[in-house]
């Protein structure tokens, strides 16, 4: 039986269990209208039975699915002739792989002989038997669990509390997924970075001025000594992020001020969704907008002004990234401005301030912490942005502050280091993890600062 069918049947049993549990709880107290005699609402007794029917059966299914392949492989290997069974572990593994492939009807790397064919047939037979056994066991478990829970229903049974306890564990499990994933990512990056720092000294990475991540493939290769100074990457990131902020902060802030204080409800109703559309454009689209439209335009504009501009310039990438971030800045600033109590606005207007005085002297100072927090979040967004820079700013790790030159950023280098066929133990590949770790630390610090500023601001009016 297919596992999907099995799961569907379990779902059906859960629904049935729900109705039986509900009906029994009502029947015990004499039907509808006597529900007050029950400890919990009748539905909770239904959920109680359904949970007991499904959860143990699902747990069994999970364990079975995890253990099954190993058991079957062991059984199949046991059934092989002695000559095969005593092969060294590596070759035995290969053989088992071939048997499995043959059983599944895939391509096999050796000539198929009788032994192999028999083993494959046996494998399939075991799988078939295991599935049937599993189906019986799981459905039996579900029936048994449900029946036991059903028998235990009693007007004094605290069904709601029990159901809620199970739900609470579900919620805890769901919320720990995100946390565990974060921890997992940090740890995996951290361990690889430590391996990198065993090959390349930390001081070279942090303070070296030259980024040229080449490693020798052959011992006698020329020009193979890589250098891993990350400074050009971080200055490149800083340059592009600053350009993006110079674009995004004033435009976003003024947009927010206009929308929050000056626009009519109708204009706000049109402009806000449009801004959100801007936030929804994939960054790769911004990337080719930057590379194909903005960069050539800047280049030709620069030429007519007599400035040498690289065809892939930090300026193009920064401007487009700034445009991409405008909606983020404006919506966070808009939230901060709207969070200022309207009593402030009234108070200032009531004293005879003009709208602009109200804005600059009362509302903006009051909203400033929230706005600063929003800008910091936007900065970490800009630092982490990759696609636009790959397409518009190039890959050359120049140590420069000139926005007309090509630069590269940390994220772009991580991408180029990991794209393509790589050995996963060379310094070149491991450098990506070191960069990732640095980036993670920097954005984490920015986020912590941003969020704490925002939180401090919230405390002010509560």
């Amino acid at each position: 039986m297919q596992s999907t069918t099995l799961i569907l049947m379990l779902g059906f049993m859960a629904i049935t269990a729900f109705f039986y549990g509900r009906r029994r709880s009502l029947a015990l107290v004499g039907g509808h209208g006597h529900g007050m005699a029950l400890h919990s609402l009748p539905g909770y007794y239904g959920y109680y039975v359904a949970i007991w029917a499904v959860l143990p059966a699902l747990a069994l299914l999970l364990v079975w699915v995890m253990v099954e392949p190993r058991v079957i492989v062991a059984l199949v290997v046991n059934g092989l002739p002695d000559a095969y069974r005593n092969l060294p572990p590596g070759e035995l593994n290969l053989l088992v792989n071939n048997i499995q492939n043959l059983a599944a009807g895939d391509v096999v790397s050796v000539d198929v002989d009788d032994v192999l064919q028999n083993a494959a047939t046996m494998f399939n037979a075991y799988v078939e038997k295991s599935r049937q056994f599993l189906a019986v066991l799981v459905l039996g478990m579900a029936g048994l669990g449900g029946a036991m829970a059903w028998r235990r229903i009693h007007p004094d049974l605290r069904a709601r509390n029990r159901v809620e306890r199970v739900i609470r564990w579900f919620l805890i499990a769901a919320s720990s997924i995100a946390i565990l994933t974060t921890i997992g990512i940090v740890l995996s990056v951290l361990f690889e970075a430590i391996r990198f720092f065993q090959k390349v000294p930390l001081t070279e990475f942090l303070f070296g001025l030259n980024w040229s991540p080449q490693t020798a493939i052959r011992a006698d290769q020329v020009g193979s000594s890589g250098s891993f100074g990350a400074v050009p990457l971080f200055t490149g990131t800083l340059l592009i992020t600053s350009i993006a902020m110079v674009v995004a902060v004033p435009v976003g802030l003024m947009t927010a001020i206009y929308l929050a204080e000056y626009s009519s409800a109708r204009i706000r109703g049109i402009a806000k969704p449009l801004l959100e559309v801007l936030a929804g454009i994939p960054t790769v689209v911004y990337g080719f907008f930057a590379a194909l439209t903005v960069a050539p335009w800047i280049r030709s504009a620069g030429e007519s002004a007599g400035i040498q501009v690289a065809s892939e310039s930090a300026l193009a990438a920064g401007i487009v990234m700034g445009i991409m971030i405008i909606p983020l800045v404006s919506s966070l600033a808009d939230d901060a401005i709207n969070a200022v109590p309207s009593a402030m606005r009234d108070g200032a207007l009531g004293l005879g301030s003009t709208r602009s005085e109200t804005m600059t002297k009362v509302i903006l100072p009051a909203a400033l912490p929230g706005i600063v927090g929003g800008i910091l979040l936007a900065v970490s967004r800009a630092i982490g942005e990759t696609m636009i820079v790959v397409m518009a700013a190039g890959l050359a790790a120049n140590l420069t502050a000139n926005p007309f030159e090509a630069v590269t950023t940390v994220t772009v280098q991580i991408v180029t280091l990991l794209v393509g066929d790589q050995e996963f133990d060379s310094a070149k590949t491991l450098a990506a993890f070191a960069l990732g770790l640095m980036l993670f630390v920097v954005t984490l610090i920015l986020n912590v600062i941003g969020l704490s500023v925002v939180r401090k601001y919230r405390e002010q009016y509560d």
Partner: protein
Amino acid sequence: MTETSTDKPVPPAAEPQAEPVVEAAVLHEVPERVTELGGATVGNTRCENPFMVAEDVNVYYGDNHAIQNVSLEIGKKEVIALIGPSGCGKSTFLRCLNRMNDTIETARVTGNITLDGKDIYRSEQDPVALRARVGMVFQKPNPFPKSIYDNVAYGPRIHGLAADRAELDNIVHTSLERAGLINEVKDRLDEPGTSLSGGQQQRLCIARTIAVNPEVILMDEPCSALDPIATARIEDLMDELCEDYAIVIVTHSMQQAARVSRRVAYFHLGLLVEVDETDRIFTNPQHKLTEDYITGRIG
């Protein structure tokens, strides 16, 4: 009320008309009261020395006709209280007097309001300049998130009332003194205004309002968020302030209206029902609705 109507079997439809007559006869030997809603304001909307005059004011919020044909004179150096149940339009009327309704997109005001003989809704009138002359104190104390000093200095600064720092210091000091706050805050002018207690914050807002030297002060339930002791201090303050300013106060407390005001205006469902001297209105209201409200039968 109900006993009288059960005595004689009157059809239910006739009951409301019959009731007031019966009651007037039963209670006291007082003159018959006006009962209709929608007629002319009873009492006396005029005063001896009018400073702000509203005539036939109507306010619409979109399709909602919030106040209808309100005419009222507000005298120099008097406290006039606007009372009435929630939603009766008293705050709306108050906000017409300094054009705060302009900040509401859907609000529309018709009629005529003059300040010292000049129409405040005429096209040349700058609402900003008007609000400097007609100050406002709000229901909830709303000090700016600035220091106590900067809160009071805010108005003089934006209107350029002080030539130098010394003059500004003087204005701040005088305003705090007049608001009765100076002794409590004179050593902590640099602390944020929000660090004060609710009653102190409200007096700070009053100090902030009088720092721009207005001619009229509008107060929208200034004590509704305060305890009785802080309320008493604000009321004392109003007694002093009315020697220099015209004060219009919206209040839900009849006792407060009786304590602080010289005249009282009763609003009901967007209509100005009755205006009179405070003693008259609380002892001998002319309108049935006013009587019902001040005796606690409605509202």
